[in-house]
């Protein structure tokens, strides 16, 4: 009973931001809402966001599909190394990427500095759509790359052989069998990528592209018409939920798609022959653009900053702050997710799965939406909590609890209920069984969930920016504000730290994946 109450409380808390947004925008009334939605400023934002998501997803697919094919299905030299290098841009948060681009190509950037003596005082602007598309493509194509690679690995090679024996050339086989089989991986990966692009705040805000997240932020900052911001946020949530539902449905269907059993044979690799050099050049260009260049730029600014005598004191303060709030968020998320996961896995019922669904809602909520809603809510109803650490942690929890819920759920599913039944038959009460059997066995899942939340919290920008106490600087906020004010050298050290932390989180995610696949 206690457990159900706790889980219900968690679910309600997770529903709070969205509920509040709904209430808030309903104050507008239908007529006013429609008026706002159809005014040119709003439609421009919607069009901008859709164009951005479509372009980034398209370009990412153009990179990811050939790269995945090259690294899985051909004899490309050094495939393992390329696979790792090509997935690695994932560890660069979008605002760090945008910062690297700005500080290289923007006004007062590196290239400008080099060209000034030559009389070039203005470079073509990278602000707006081009910069945003470039940055988001290059740092988020790995999502699609990894998803398509998994698709290639799941492909039964006998399918392609069957097509060949039925008279298809290799090229026809690719179009008629391979690609249709990859379609679930491509569409679900593409939808999730679009979701990521729509939710991104760091890149579009630094590169000044007026998509939803930036528009919402500007509304929050500038005007007092908060209902308008709430409405914008709701439209964004509607779009992300649509994408998420679409991706889920396709992934679900993928499950049934595997007809037949039996061991899959090792797949045959295509010989590239002389095309090898073109392929290598392609991989090299992508790695240069997405990894070497941005990190090189950051290191450049770090060195310049040190030359100029930049002090590291603010960095260490920001690091302390980041670690502190991230650790708190990790603990809260795991504690909150435990009852929900336990009930969902061990006592499946319609009510419990609704609780879990509510708790998963955070996945669909972009950080800026959660932050905005909690800012309004705090200012209006609980001024005591407004701009306190408690509110910040609550924001993180809404956003990242789904992650810990996922790992805990996987962990619980791997513990056989027979073990718990054995403990019960040996005379332990239900509660003692949880303490002495379930939790000890769940320990790896708990650690993984906490680590995942910790590492993603450290990277989180919009929630920290809006909900943090005044003057509370974390690494993410430090990078963002330094970059937006063109203090490029000051952003370098925190950016490097953040990227290394972020790299750690990838390692954990990959380990989790391996465990659940094996």
């Amino acid at each position: 009973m206690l457990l159900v109450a706790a889980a219900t409380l968690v679910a309600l808390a997770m529903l709070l931001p969205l509920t509040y947004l709904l209430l808030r925008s309903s104050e507008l009334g239908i007529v006013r809402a429609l008026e706002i939605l159809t005014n040119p400023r709003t439609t421009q934002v919607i069009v901008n966001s859709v164009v951005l998501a479509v372009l980034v997803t398209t370009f990412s697919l153009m990179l990811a599909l050939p790269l995945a094919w090259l690294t899985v299905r051909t004899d490309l030299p050094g495939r393992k190394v390329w696979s790792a290098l090509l997935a690695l841009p994932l560890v660069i948060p979008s605002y760090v990427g945008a910062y690297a681009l700005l500080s290289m190509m923007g006004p007062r950037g590196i290239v400008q500095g080099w060209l000034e003596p030559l009389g070039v005082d203005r470079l073509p602007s990278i602000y707006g759509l081009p910069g945003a598309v470039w940055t988001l493509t290059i740092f988020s194509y790995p999502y699609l790359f990894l998803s398509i690679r998994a698709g290639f690995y799941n492909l039964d090679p006998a399918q392609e052989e069957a097509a060949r024996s039925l008279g298809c050339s290799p090229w026809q086989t690719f179009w008629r069998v391979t690609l249709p089989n990859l379609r679930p991986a491509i569409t679900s990966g593409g939808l999730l990528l679009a979701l990521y692009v729509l939710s991104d705040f760091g890149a579009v805000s630094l590169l000044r592209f007026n998509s939803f997240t930036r528009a919402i932020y500007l509304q929050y900052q500038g005007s007092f018409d908060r209902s308008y911001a709430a409405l914008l946020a709701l439209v964004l949530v509607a779009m992300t939920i649509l994408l998420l539902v679409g991706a889920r449905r396709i992934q679900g269907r993928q499950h049934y798609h595997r007809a037949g059993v039996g061991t899959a044979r090792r797949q045959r690799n295509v010989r590239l022959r002389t095309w090898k050099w073109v392929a290598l050049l392609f991989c090299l260009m992508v790695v240069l653009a997405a990894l070497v260049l941005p990190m090189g730029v950051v290191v450049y600014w770090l060195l310049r900053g040190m030359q100029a005598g930049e002090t590291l004191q603010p960095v260490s303060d920001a690091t302390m702050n980041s670690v502190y709030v991230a650790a708190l968020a990790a603990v809260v998320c795991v504690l909150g997710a435990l009852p929900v996961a336990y009930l969902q896995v061990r006592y499946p019922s319609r009510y419990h799965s609704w609780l879990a669904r509510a708790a998963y809602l955070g996945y669909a909520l972009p950080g800026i939406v959660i932050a905005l809603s909690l800012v309004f809510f705090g200012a209006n109803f609980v001024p005591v909590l407004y701009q306190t650490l408690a509110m910040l942690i609550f924001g993180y929890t809404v956003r990242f609890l789904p992650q810990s819920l996922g790992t805990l759920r996987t962990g619980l599913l791997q513990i056989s209920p027979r073990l718990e039944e054995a403990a019960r038959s040996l005379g332990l009460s239900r509660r003692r069984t949880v303490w002495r059997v379930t939790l000890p066995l769940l320990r790896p899942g708990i650690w993984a969930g906490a680590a995942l939340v910790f590492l993603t919290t450290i990277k989180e920008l919009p929630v920290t920016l809006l909900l943090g106490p005044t003057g509370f600087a974390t690494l993410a906020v430090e990078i963002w504000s330094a970059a937006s004010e063109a203090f490029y050298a000051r952003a370098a050290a925190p950016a490097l730290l953040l990227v290394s932390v972020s790299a750690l989180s990838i390692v954990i995610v990959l380990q989790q994946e391996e465990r659940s696949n094996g």
Partner: protein
Amino acid sequence: MIADSNPGIRLEKVVKRYGAVVAVTGVSLDLPKGQLLALLGPSGCGKTTTLRLIAGFETLDEGTIAIGGQQVASRDRQTPPERRRVGMVFQEYALFPHLNVAQNIHFGLHQSPRDADRRVAVVTEMVGLAGLEKRLPHELSGGQQQRVALARALAPEPDVVLLDEPFSNLDAGLRVRVRAEVRAILRAAGATAVFVTHDQEEAMSLVDLVAVMLEGSVQQVSSPQQLYHQPATRAVAEFVGDANFFPGIANGQVVDCELGPLVLQFFARGSVDVLVRPENVTVKPAPASAPNRVKRVLFFGHDQLVTLQLPSGRLLDARVSPIYNFAIGQPVTLQVNGLVMAYPSVVR
């Protein structure tokens, strides 16, 4: 030559290596058109590799392969799989999950839409799947998936059909029925077919010819009956069915061994190992003076496997009818029925 006027598949001295490992060591085979052949062997003997060489999924290192009188593989020239006119039924069926039954069967057809549709209808009818055309593969039972795979392979009227352990994914009860169905379908289609299997019973009951493969090479190609009664080598005899071996001295038509003088199927001389099938031994209860004792009895109902200890201490397995109730230690007499095979004795 008969094989040339009526060519099905011909393999000549086919060799396939994986690095230092020789998977197939000089396989030669001749399968006339319209016949069914089983490639029988234990796992790892190279039978699947041989099948994949015929299909064109592996490239051979030496030798040649011809299908329907056309050479399709040699050291220098490989016809790609799509131009070999070979239909393949995969172990795990490999049905295209994104296509329904009719679309799967239609996949390999390259004629006009009308002819193709007609062909799909004919083949669907032939394998007994009429009415299920719109189903997706995951909506079918294992046996139905099997038949779709077969129909898809047969639809383009290939010169040969290759089947890789086609029944291993079916449960035992279903297997016997599906086996008979597949055999009937292949016969009706007049197909030339090669099965790969490790199941002797399956191989023997299904085909015209059995090729036994051991350690990368074909040891014997013959009818199931001949394979069982006249195994070409001691290794084949051991692999196919159960076998007792006794050392003996052959002297033309007769061989002398512990079981007395036995009549040979083939003339032989010198020291040999005599093959005695458990099925060919009759055992009867006898007075205490009889030299053989019952050591062990496994009772199966329809028959029983009785292990006898001979005076020399050697053991002999006999598969006998269940009418007698043998007790452990009981004295018995035994008799070997029919002619026996003998092989040059191995020095141990």
